[in-house]
């Protein structure tokens, strides 16, 4: 039995194709990207070689300048992350709490709230394009309001918000579902005990339910953060071409429109580093949060 499960040849047949395939298509390109990001731009003349320039592309990326849009793109993505964390997630949590605490036709609400999530973000974006161009102006007309100059999607001040809104709206359902699922899996005796102790409504939510779904909140947070750095579909469709106002867009434009492969690779690597850094940061934060509540609990016990 053990011999059968440890047979080297059968293991190789099961695992090796996947490992090789995965390495060739996912891992090697990532290392190549990193290597390219350390090179100077591919010269126009055939036969010339690109030089190894270490981190010059990375420095260039963050050198302030009128024509360098990347720092602003990063700030914009952080702005989106902020909106997602401080508006979208609390809102989703509120809905999840309401649904999980039992309202009439709970599952109907849940199923319908989730619909935007399964729809392609391309369709969502094109739909919102129509909403911005046709529906909102006519609503403004009814109330005699003045539209922003050039419309929402071209106006400098409203553009970003107009682009963020559809994806914020779309993924409320996803976060809600994740939190709802976690809330539902809290053992009922915990809730019952808290009820007997006189906790209700808001206190129950703040003291019992939210702390107990912390692992899922972490998943939602990293989802928001990583999603904000990778955000591509909605802005790609809603903004005019060659727009570089978000990191993924900037990378795409530099890569496929301007053909600055090294510079674009540096931006791509930056997105990866950013994602990894924030994943690590979240892990540290949540560990501290655990430690903090534990310490406080012990102190209380000692008192």
């Amino acid at each position: 039995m053990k011999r059968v499960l440890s047979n080297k040849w059968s293991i190789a047949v099961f695992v090796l194709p996947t490992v090789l395939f995965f390495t060739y298509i996912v891992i090697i390109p990532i290392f190549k990207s990193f290597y390219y990001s350390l090179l100077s731009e591919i010269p126009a003349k055939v036969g010339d070689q690109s030089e190894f320039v270490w981190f010059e592309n990375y420095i260039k990326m963050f050198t302030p300048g009128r024509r360098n849009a990347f720092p602003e793109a990063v700030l914009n993505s952080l702005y989106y992350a902020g909106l997602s964390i401080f508006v979208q997630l609390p809102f989703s949590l509120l809905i999840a709490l309401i649904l999980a605490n039992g309202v009439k036709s709970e599952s109907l609400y849940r199923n319908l709230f989730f619909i935007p999530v399964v729809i392609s973000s391309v369709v969502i974006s094109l739909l919102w394009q129509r909403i911005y161009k046709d529906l909102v102006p006519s609503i403004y007309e009814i109330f005699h309001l003045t539209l922003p100059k050039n419309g929402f999607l071209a106006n400098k001040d409203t553009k970003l918000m107009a682009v963020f809104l559809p994806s914020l709206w779309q993924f409320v359902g996803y976060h809600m579902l994740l939190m709802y699922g976690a809330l539902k899996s809290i053992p009922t005796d915990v809730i019952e005990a808290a009820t007997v102790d006189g906790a209700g409504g808001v206190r129950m939510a703040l003291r019992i339910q939210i702390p107990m779904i912390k692992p899922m909140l972490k998943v939602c947070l990293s989802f928001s953060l990583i999603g904000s750095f990778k955000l591509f579909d909605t802005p790609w469709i809603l903004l005019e071409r060659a727009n570089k106002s978000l990191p993924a867009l900037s990378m795409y434009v530099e890569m496929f429109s301007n053909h600055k492969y090294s510079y674009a690779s540096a931006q791509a690597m930056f997105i990866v580093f950013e994602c990894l850094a924030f994943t690590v940061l979240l892990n540290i934060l949540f560990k501290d949060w655990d430690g903090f509540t534990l310490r406080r609990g012990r102190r209380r016990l000692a008192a």
Partner: protein
Amino acid sequence: MKKKFSLGKVATHAFLIVWLLLCVFPLYWLLCFSLKDTQEIFNGNLIGLPTQWLFSNYANAWGAGGNISVFLMNSVIDTAVTLCITSLMGFMSAYGLLRMRWKGQKVVMTYIMMGMMIPMHAALYPLTETLLPLNKTYWALIIPYAAFNIPITILILSGFITNIPYEMEEAACIDGSGIFRTAFTIILPMMVPAIATAAIFVFLQVWNELLLATIFASGKVRTLTVGIQQMSGQYQTDYGSMGAALVIATLPTLVLYMCMSGQVQRSLIAGAVKG
């Protein structure tokens, strides 16, 4: 639990219903304008039901001007082949990695899981080089889709596969079944629900994907996402047909969701760790 009619309850429901309308209204609106003609929309019937139900918009988007049928077929092929690859390779490597016993299985597992945390932006340009010979074929999209979705498939399967008792293999082994026969005729059938869970997640990812599709799907092999995005440029004036195209593109996922909403929700919960 207290049960009474209270102001709080009414407010709660009002809040939920408002959000419900905000969730469903865009869909209703889409469905309506896919059946109207441009004239009607501009003459003020922006929100109401269409006065005439113009199914010709659908015919127009499907064949004549829009070619949605071609894009749809391409998306179906890409998605179907990707799902076959991820399911088969995912199952086999999950079996090899989590069921069999060998040195270094943890290392290999971590290696593949690390790939999941890295966004595919990072591999984009080198991939265009690697996949250049496959340009304008279905494989140019299928291969990266499959490779990037194998880790999450393995992860979703891992939760299930470790719960199957080892007595299964023991009994099969005593009866003289080889490892491959055991894996494919005894373990695989037990894994079908898990494979379905993973497949639904991957389906939604692949069907809705845009970034890779804009790069690798050009010409005849354009997928729905790229196709309708390009169509929206050409169809600036023909709202009805554009709406019809969007409805056709959405229908497969929407039907899937309506038929098995619970299963779809479970899949997306299981895949959430991917980020």
